[in-house]
């Protein structure tokens, strides 16, 4: 399995779990504010889960950058040390 595809699936699954919505609601280009649950608290919960599940470090700078699934995937591609599914 391609690791990029794998990360995309894992991110979609993670967001579905954090925002408590069906995975089909997590579209590939979903961004901050597109779901009511992706608000400030939802965003920060997602940041914490990204750290835990992907082993990446999320800083104050990156919190404001990771505001869409494409941005998250790019960040993971450049920073992940892990953990292919």
């Amino acid at each position, binding site marked *: 399995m391609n690791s990029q595809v794998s990360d995309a699936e894992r991110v979609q699954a993670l967001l579905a779990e954090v925002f408590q919505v069906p995975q089909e609601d997590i579209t590939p280009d979903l961004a901050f*504010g597109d779901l*009511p649950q992706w*608000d*400030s*608290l939802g*965003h*920060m*919960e997602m*940041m*914490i889960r990204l750290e835990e599940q992907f082993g990446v470090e*999320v*800083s*104050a*700078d990156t*919190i*404001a950058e990771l505001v869409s699934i494409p941005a998250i995937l790019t960040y993971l591609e450049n920073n992940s040390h892990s953990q292919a599914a």
Partner: protein
Amino acid sequence: MSDTTHAGLTIEITPGVAIPAHLVGEVQSKLAYVDERIRAAEVAPSGDRITLQVQAEEDTPQLQAELDEKVQRVIDTMVKGAFKPKIQVLEDHLQRPTPYNQDPMQELVARGEVSQEATGMFSLGPLVTRLIDYFEDQFLGLADAFDANPYRFPTLIPAKYLERVNYFSAFPHSLSFVTHLREDLDVIDEFAQHAACDQHGLNTPPDSFAQVQALLSPAVCYHLYFSLADQPLPNGRLAATAVGSCFRYEAINLASLERLWNFTMREVIFVGPKDYVLKNRENARQHMSQVLEETGLAYRVESANDPFFIGEFRKQAAFQSAFQLKFEIRARLPFEDSTLAVGSYNYHQDFFGRHLNISLPDGSPAHTGCVAFGLERIAFAFLAQYGLDVRDWPASVREAVHG
């Protein structure tokens, strides 16, 4: 570890995890809400020791255990996994020379300029009132620069409004509730005949009071957002200004004019598209930079976060920091080598637009922002820097206040 003194007990607690420097003040402020028996709380600057002054007759293992468990819960919730904030300084005039370095409160009280009614409640005399009027003139000048429409809002705010913007979960500790006697002849007669105050307050049984429907308002701008709710924003953008009494209960943190339960806030508020709100917030900062230079205030503008309660603090504070949503004007208090927030530049993204269904012409939720000033605080900070002798004041302030 504990010591008994005539004032109560001193209890020291070692945090389970060291409190980082950027959270020392935040954790210390929250310890005020841990237990009613705590009369003072201090976190060592190193973050590895907490000292509590506790009102209790005797030290017991149970008391120690109760306090330790609650304090550790605060620390765990606020500190574990906390993101380090990015501090951004937009202006730094902290070293602007000022002539005074005493705590002005003693002289203010001696001259009858400040009179304490109760904890966190003060009456102000003519000099302080005129000084506040001077600052109000500056803030009204700021509002005029944006053609901001004037508004007046009630001091009460409906509970259902605050619930709608998640205020209860974000700031439960600072709420001030309003009630009245139940509409029941027996209850009212009973109150009229027996109401009395002891050292703890009014002796009335709690079931004499009606269910809470309103609170004392914690902020001015909320009223504007509620008045715009559930409809398209007329003209797609709005600048407004209002002044009002605000209420934030801060327990043992209430102190002098620095931290009041009942204070006055002037706000200039922007509602509209993101770019409009952010541009005006920045324009307001630049306008106020000139005003504060004329006023001679020593201050710094730096990123900050709202005082969220323990449960939401870690996430909300980090979010505000990361997205640069809040900047505070922090004035120098020379007598204690610290700073005091006297105003703030705030951007709420589309939080209120979404939660209150305020829509722009394209159907998207409106963005909001506000520039807010604490009137008592800015007067106090000025007096802490310049003293009460008007001859030492900058000419522009002296002439405006004294003619």
